[in-house]
């Protein structure tokens, strides 16, 4: 059985409400259509501060400051039952405040696209110098800043996008070309934000793994952004740009794109490279998505629910050869939603869950926890999209009933036992199963869990090239005691050994 170790994970949130208020798709479209819209005023008025985001239980679960069991037992709704104290750092990462993240945008900018106001740049330099993971190599990229008038002129004359803190312009993101829309300030801000979030997660990952940046061999980015110019929109390799900013001098990289299924697809791709020996280790990384900030805020404002889509989700996972110590991803039982599988929920669930279970000789109840779309229901339910993880669990349970592995009356119990509360920000690819990988790996290490299944699904039809959706899944489980098993023993291998033995025996009989 081919297996790969999950050596470390990192999960971070970039708290960016003011970027969201202006450049999230929903508010941005409203700005263009109705600049004086009451919705925009109400949204700005009801935006939550960092103090709330860093006491909100789903956010704390995401960064590993709270377990999924603690979240499940938490008073609901979590936005009305905030933790007593704000918590910036968790076991896996942090919730970075917006001013520091704007500074990180500048650190990750190598084309002088981001300009900072002088006083703001000085204050951010002080803050980021105190950050536990920022090195001199990163801090030297932070600019000294410019006069506010210079920034205002760049916005007024050259279509730069202003960046605000507490309503005051503290910086701007400039365009990369006068006429190429692929290098507009808006596209570049989205790409830079995704890059910066991935860099932050990669730095946490390296620290969590007890390694040095130079130890990283390869980086795979699985975000939803497209980097390129007019002649190759989506040309890509954000991964290598991320590796450069994280000082991973011995790494190269590439990108994998599959909408929200990309994280799972990337982990399978990366695990395969590690098993094959093509790469010593692979860091799968992703930054977050500016467009999805305040995506559902129209309904939140209408229903007087705090608009909590104010943070970009980012993550990183380090895959290394199976050492017999760390939890492993097994590559002999992967879920794949084929072109011909069909689009019905039953067909999708069978392809992603039932078929890998069959391949591994397991039953539905052999998997302790299933991690499908882990969207925070306090965001999706008021928006009319329902409790996404719960709907997925009911579908898994229903299939278990159809396969005779669960009583119909036991569906609710199955959902409770094998399900998870949603805790991930509604950032498209981010909630797609992977936020549980860190929690699962820890629970397996601590002996509380044997196995979890991570499931990703992607809406390919949004790209208007196919009506199909996609999906992929893998299982993570405890390592075998002997460990070190990376390559499966095939039937041919066994036959060869038997033939050798019989050959030796025949030789001895002749003698």
């Amino acid at each position, binding site marked *: 059985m081919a297996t790969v170790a999950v050596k470390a994970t990192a999960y971070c949130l970039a708290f960016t409400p003011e970027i969201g208020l202006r450049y999230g798709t929903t508010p941005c479209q409203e700005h263009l259509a109705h600049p004086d819209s009451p919705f925009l005023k109400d949204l700005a008025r009801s935006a939550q501060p960092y103090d709330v985001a860093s006491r909100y239980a789903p956010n704390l679960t995401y960064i590993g400051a709270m377990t999924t069991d603690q979240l499940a037992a938490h008073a609901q709704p979590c936005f009305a039952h905030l933790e007593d104290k704000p918590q910036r750092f968790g076991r896996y990462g942090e919730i970075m405040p917006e001013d520091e993240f704007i500074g990180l945008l500048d650190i990750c900018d190598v084309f002088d696209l981001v300009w900072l106001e002088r006083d703001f740049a000085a204050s951010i330099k002080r803050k980021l110098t105190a950050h536990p993971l920022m090195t001199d190599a990163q801090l030297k990229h932070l600019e000294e800043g410019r006069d506010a008038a210079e920034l205002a002129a760049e916005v007024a004359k050259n279509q730069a996008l202003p960046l605000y803190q507490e309503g005051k312009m503290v910086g701007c993101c400039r365009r990369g070309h006068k006429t190429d829309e692929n290098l507009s300030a808006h596209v570049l801000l989205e790409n830079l934000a995704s890059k910066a979030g991935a860099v932050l997660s990669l730095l946490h990952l390296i620290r969590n793994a007890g390694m040095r940046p130079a130890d990283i061999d390869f980086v795979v980015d699985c975000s939803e952004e497209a980097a390129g110019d007019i002649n190759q929109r989506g040309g890509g390799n954000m991964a290598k740009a991320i590796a450069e900013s994280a000082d991973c001098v011995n790494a190269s990289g590439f990108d994998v794109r599959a909408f929200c299924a990309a994280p799972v697809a990337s982990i399978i791709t990366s695990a395969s490279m590690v098993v094959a020996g093509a790469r010593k280790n692979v860091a799968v990384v992703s930054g977050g998505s500016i467009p999805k900030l305040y995506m559902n805020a129209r309904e939140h404002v209408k229903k007087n629910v705090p608009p909590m889509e104010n943070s970009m989700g980012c993550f990183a996972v380090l895959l290394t050869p199976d050492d017999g110590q760390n939890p492993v991803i097994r590559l002999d039982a992967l879920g794949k939603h084929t072109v011909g599988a*069909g*689009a*019905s929920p039953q067909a999708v669930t069978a392809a992603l869950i039932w078929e890998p279970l069959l391949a591994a000789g397991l039953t539905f109840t052999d998997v302790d926890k299933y991690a499908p*779309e882990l969207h925070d229901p306090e965001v*999706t339910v008021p928006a009319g999209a329902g409790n996404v993880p719960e*709907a*997925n669990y009911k579908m898994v349970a229903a299939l278990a009933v159809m396969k005779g592995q669960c009583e119909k009356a036991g569906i609710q119990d199955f959902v409770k036992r094998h399900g998870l509360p949603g805790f991930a920000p509604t950032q498209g690819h981010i909630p797609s199963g992977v936020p549980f990988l860190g929690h699962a790996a820890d629970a397996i290490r601590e002996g509380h869990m044997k196995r979890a299944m991570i499931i990703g699904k992607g*809406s390919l*039809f949004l790209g208007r090239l196919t*009506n199909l959706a996609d999906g992929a899944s893998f299982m993570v489980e405890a390592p075998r005691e002997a460990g070190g098993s990376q390559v499966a023993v095939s039937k041919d291998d066994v036959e060869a050994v038997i033939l050798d033995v019989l050959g030796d025996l025949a030789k001895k009989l002749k003698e």
Partner: protein
Amino acid sequence: MGKLTGKKLILMGERDGIPSPAMESVFAGSGAEVAYAATECFV
């Protein structure tokens, strides 16, 4: 002749619920015409 013969259908699907291709399959033999079918992703 089914109940839907000659009718026109608008099918609105959802990625994590019932996508429109699945609904189109269901109505394929109903005698109705699918005037519009789309799948959206609300998450």
